[in-house]
């Protein structure tokens, strides 16, 4: 065996090239993996959704509205649906509240007699303006943007709350 094979410099060189190649190997595998998982997470479904004719909603009433994902995966089933609460304030004025409680994201329910949104998880209560009136929720219900076009009500969907 040639003595150069055992020189410390040569040994160091091989060590470094092994570590560098190992790093390249890991990086080349990790990038597509992470990219694949992040891709759908970047998708934003922020398109106006038609939720019904203006006259379907009584003035002063609060109604649950549902709207589908505009570009669902074919295997989605019911998961294409989303919902919010819509309050008609006047002839063409509407306010829409997120269905997700601001505490841990459970769906709130409008109970007309109690004039309140009630959360089934930890007992959060919101008034008809979505402000917290009891329980642990830290802030009001999120509001969706609403517009009226050609006698139809449209909302800009909100995902689950951001919590920041």
């Amino acid at each position, binding site marked *: 065996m040639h003595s150069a094979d055992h020189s410390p410099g040569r040994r160091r060189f091989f060590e470094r090239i092994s570590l560098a190649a190992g790093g390249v190997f890991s990086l080349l595998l990790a990038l597509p993996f992470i990219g694949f998982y992040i891709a759908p997470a970047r998708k934003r479904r922020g398109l106006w959704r038609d939720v019904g004719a203006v006259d379907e909603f009584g003035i002063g009433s609060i109604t649950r509205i549902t709207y589908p994902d505009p570009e669902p995966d*074919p295997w989605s*089933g019911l998961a294409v649906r989303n919902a919010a609460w819509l309050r008609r304030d006047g002839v063409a004025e509407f306010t829409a509240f997120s*269905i997700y409680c601001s505490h841990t994201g459970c769906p709130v329910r409008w109970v007309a*007699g109690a004039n309140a949104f009630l959360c089934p998880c930890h007992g959060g209560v919101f008034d008809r303006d979505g402000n917290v009136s009891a329980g642990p929720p830290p802030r009001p219900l999120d509001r969706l943007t609403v517009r009226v076009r050609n006698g139809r009500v449209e909302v800009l969907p909100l*995902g*689950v709350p951001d919590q920041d």
Partner: protein
Amino acid sequence: MRRIAAWLSDRLGLGPVVRTVLHHPVPPSTTRGVTGWLYVLGFVTAAALVVQVVTGIALTSRYVPATAAAYESVQILSGEFWGGLIRGMHYWGATALVVFMLLHMLRSFLMGAYKFPREMLWITGVLLFGFVMMMAFTGQLLRWDQDGLWGSVVASQYAARVPLVGDALKRFILAGDAVSGATLGRFYSLHVVLLPLLLFALFGVHMYLVVHHGISERAQPGKPVDPRTYRKEYDRLLEREGLPYWPHAVWSEIVAAAAMVAGVIVLALLIGARALGDPPDPASVPSHPRPDWYLMWYYALLAVKPRGFEDLVMVYLPIIALVVLVMLPLVRSRGERAPSRRPLAVASAGLVVFAFVALTITGYREPWVPRLETPVLTARELGAGTSPEVLAGARVFHETGCQFCHAVAGTGGRWGPDLTDVRSRISEPVLVDRILNGIGDMPAYRGTLSAEQLESIVRFLDAVRVRQP
């Protein structure tokens, strides 16, 4: 036969493995008497893991990880004998896994088994605990009923509270900004592939360390761990009176594991898996989204903790708990191991167990949840002679939501005080003030109730007091 066995042993190089794994000596104190049975907990935990692998493999052959079909596939296989049995075993196996893991951890803590030189045994155990809890959580989501669907939303809300990256994490978990067809697949690949791979790698390290460091001998008061002498003394103990693991220690472990599997099968047959809830629909409002039992304490904590501190309880508490558990053997690696010499350790373990049990019970009682299903009080509960005005008041008491939180004559919610005899406690002006302006978790009803409704409720509450014997 013997020659074939000898040939295989030689060519497969089994000799050293058999010697180090099966014949390694264990302290006799861990195999004798009633307390010897405390040392089977780790083995039974591992056996429960095997139950989960076997039943889990079976379930993947029928489960359909698509949001449109997952619920139905679980429903259909649950309706069949073998499907119901396997799913029941997976459910009760998960329960056994969590229970025995917690008991194993409690024993290791109380007996100071985490001290020198077994610090990494404890730390890998803590990480295994984390993985098992993640498996438990992702597993309950895969049922993909309303609880599963809303559980994934709640998980995203926890993640959303993480500083700086919260929003990105939330989108990452849900595969978008809300639940969609892509959400379930993430939990499926986590629960079925990624987490099990990581868990088993860690489990391998944990097992290697058990054999490498040997099982800790029973703690003796007045014999503190001293890193300078411990190993020498332990080796001397094993040399003098150590018993081979096979079969002196292993027999009780296998007996306990067999009893555990029998218990899992009996529970699967008698009770079955947790029943499926309503079909998953992100646009509907379920009245009772609930976690499985091992997270019930956490669910309760979020309702009963003081107001505010959301970020503390949802983000920092789990991190702090993990850091404390990981640091424990590093800062307490020496000293007394016997529980009788560690009153603070025993007290803190007792406190944790008490808090877990108390919060779990509170979680199942869930007094804070508005009882929307509570029925209107009628003459049946209030007495035959109840006047029409009072019965009308009972209807207002119900429809304006009072009864969701307050009980009268034993019917109604439990968050607010029982109002059956409220008028013997407070005067009418105070009662009216509380209704209109609210107090504590009682929302203000000013602007919600008409004068007639208020009057009706006050008369009703006045009348039920008079009725009390």
